[in-house]
């Protein structure tokens, strides 16, 4: 029941918006809306995930609350997005993790810390965790094989869950799986993602956190996004070093994997912390308060990952190394495992929605419309 009520709200809103169209210059949502005259669940899911939550439209809206039609795209789309995350999650029983996300993430962290702590004390054979280990050789605590096995499995699981979600979402919006690899559309979508085109609004930025247009959300999302990518690149490069060249870690401070990881870590310190404070200043009338826990949990996880990782790097030759390693690995493992059931999925569905938008535009052009 809840669901159809939300869809009715979305349909009402899109009917008003499609008759008005004053916002069509702001972002991709509005031209995509204009391709339609009816707004079924798949359409609304697509449009909601195409929305970058920039809020320009809300402040420009002549029908925004307290007008009796209560048109509030940032809030309505946020609610529909949240529903779609849950709806397309795999495996189904874990979908409810979206609802109490902050709690689930906290428990995951606690559990992982316990497991890694147990493993570390075993490895140290009863010696204190505060024992300095020469050269900061963390493989003395967890062997390389254990690391690869544990994180490989977690990574594979997360990737699989995200992929299945993606395919379900894609089908749900009425698309064919084969179109996921449409190269010209993919190129457009990737460009839009990498530049965060729809948070830029031709250089004006977006109405976030307040009514005044600003680029800050775009910039700090860039710090976060590229920070994440750099960390990912560092890890991948580490694996190549190990398996390709037989070079064993820990690598020197000025080795490429460490430099990439350090830069990424710094990005993941600056980005998420600033995004958190921007979020605090947000106009509560246009947010979906229920998602606040999920949003903050993800930001905190990214911050904990980068902070513990950087500390580990700096203090790896001291007695604090083992404890920091336990914390870092525990946090990263919890992050991996909860990726498909938290804020991270917005990136997957946003990319898919942008791809669909690129496809739709190309189709309209072929039709000569």
């Amino acid at each position, binding site marked *: 029941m809840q669901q159809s009520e939300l869809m009715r709200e979305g349909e009402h809103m899109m009917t008003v918006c499609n*008759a008005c*169209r*004053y916002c069509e*210059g702001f972002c991709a949502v509005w031209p995509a809306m204009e391709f339609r005259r009816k707004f079924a669940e798949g359409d609304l899911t697509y449009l909601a995930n195409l929305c970058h939550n920039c809020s320009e439209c809300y402040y420009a809206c*002549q029908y925004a609350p307290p*007008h009796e039609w209560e048109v509030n795209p940032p809030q309505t789309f946020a609610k529909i997005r949240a529903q779609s995350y849950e709806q397309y999650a795999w495996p189904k029983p874990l979908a409810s993790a979206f609802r109490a996300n902050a709690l689930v993430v906290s428990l995951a962290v606690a559990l992982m810390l316990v497991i890694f702590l147990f493993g570390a004390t075993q490895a140290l054979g009863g010696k204190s965790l505060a024992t300095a280990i020469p050269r900061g050789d963390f493989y003395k605590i967890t062997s390389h094989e254990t690391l690869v096995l544990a994180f490989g499995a977690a990574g594979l699981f997360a990737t699989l869950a995200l992929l299945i979600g993606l395919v379900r979402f894609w089908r749900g919006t009425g698309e064919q799986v084969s179109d996921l690899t449409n190269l010209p559309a993919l190129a457009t979508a990737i460009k839009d993602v990498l530049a965060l085109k729809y948070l830029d609004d031709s250089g*004006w930025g977006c109405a976030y956190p307040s009514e*005044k247009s600003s680029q800050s959300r775009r910039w700090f999302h860039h710090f976060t996004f590229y920070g994440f990518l750099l960390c990912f690149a560092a890890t991948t490069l580490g694996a190549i070093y190990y398996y390709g060249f037989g070079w064993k870690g820990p690598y020197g401070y000025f080795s490429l994997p460490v430099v990439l990881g350090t830069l990424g870590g710094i990005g993941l310190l600056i980005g998420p912390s600033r995004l958190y404070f921007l979020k605090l200043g947000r106009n509560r009338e246009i947010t979906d308060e229920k998602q606040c826990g999920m949003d903050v949990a993800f930001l905190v996880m990214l911050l904990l990952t980068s902070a513990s990782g950087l500390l580990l790097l700096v203090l790896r030759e001291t007695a604090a190394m083992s404890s920091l390693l336990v914390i870092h690995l525990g946090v990263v493992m919890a992050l991996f495992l909860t990726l498909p059931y938290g804020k991270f999925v917005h990136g997957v569905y946003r990319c898919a929605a942008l791809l669909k938008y690129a496809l739709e535009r190309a189709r309209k052009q072929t039709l000569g419309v």
Partner: protein
Amino acid sequence: MSHQDFRDLDVLVLGGGNAALCAAITAREQGASVLMLECSPKCFRGGNSRHTRNMALAHEAHIVPYTGSYPEEEFWNDYLRVTGGEGNQQLARMVIHESPNCLDWARNHGVRFQPSLTGTLHLGRTNAFFLGGGKALINAYYASAERLGVQILYEAEAIDLDIVDGVFRNATVRMAGGEQAKIAAKTLITASGGFQSDLEWMRKAWGDAVDNFLIRGTPYDKGLVLKALLDRGAESVADPTQGHMVPIDARSPKFDGGIVTRVDCVTLGIMVNKNGERYYDEGEDRWPKRYAIWGRMIAKQPDQISYAFIDSKVFDRFMPSRYPAITGNTIGEVARQFNLPVEKVEAVVAEFNRAVQPGTFNHAILDDCKTAGLTPPKTHWAQRLDTPPFYGYPLRTGVTFTYFGVKVNAKSAVLMKTGKPAENIFATGEIMAGNILPRGYVGGFGLTIGNVFGRIAGNEAAMAVREGRGALKEMAYAAK
């Protein structure tokens, strides 16, 4: 808040839409202290400007955001055509001549523009569209005004004016908390719109037909300032029945429905009144003329209602609207849902279908699809209603704004019944647009008038302050 806070006020601006903001910003930029009173709460600020989306501006060649040039002479001819030569041509010429400068002025005060909206491509050449529409425009102006130091009060409504011999002294203002204050100022700029949302005033002009009108504009244009000016000796302009009246969906709210209430399908089908009779050529002309004539025509039909019928051939050829069409597999099925005389409507449609002549349908031009031997005829876009499902929309008169206002001169000074201009009272926007447009409609022209006359009023008021004109001489807070 009391009037004590506004001692030595140079310019008092009444109103909070495009015209008021252009005036307030200009006066402030000239160094005057400015207080603006917007009678609505902040969320509904901006009067009818909140519902607008573009401005008609003459321009040369290919200037962004236009799709082509719109020479001053063409604008002038469009103006003459809709007004039939009525209206103060000197003022109209001034506005049209000055209009090219509005674009940069707006941009310099934070307004963003975009190419014309989908479904309004015919306006892409003549009109500049605001990114995000009129509310985004006034948001930009409010931000600009605040930055410059214009003081703004919301829910502050001027209910009376103290004017002696064409000299403004103070305004009686009902404040947000309900208390009254008298606010004195050296000069007054009235930019408070028309009176379309005062239904009793409308009743005086239209009789009880007004009960069936829908006011799609702002509910805050009650004409209090206009009435005060007229009561205190200002000369009026235009006819109280004149305004922008368009056919809108009968299911729309009584006030403030705005753009989404319009139903743009009249030219694509037929229109009948509550007796099931056609009464006017649905194919006479295109937008904006057809748009502007049908509102007034519905107002003259029994119970001020009409019904547009179309078939599925043309259902996707007009902008979607707020309310769903009433559908049926036969014309009669649709007519029954409207409680229309079913057999009569079926007969009218059958007769219409028989009269349709062969032609090549093209909605973008005045095409050759017409009826023969039918009264009234349909002279363009006449196609048979023969492809189910059939669709219908109930339509009523939607009043956006009224033209009845105060007479002004080229300096935007309000003219008194004595024939002399008031010394320190100026007007801009809908309250004086009737000088230029006593009837008819040119899309986006109201905002142009508000901008040009707003800037004139702001300049003139600041100049009057510098010259110590008007109330300055006797500026004595007489009204304490």
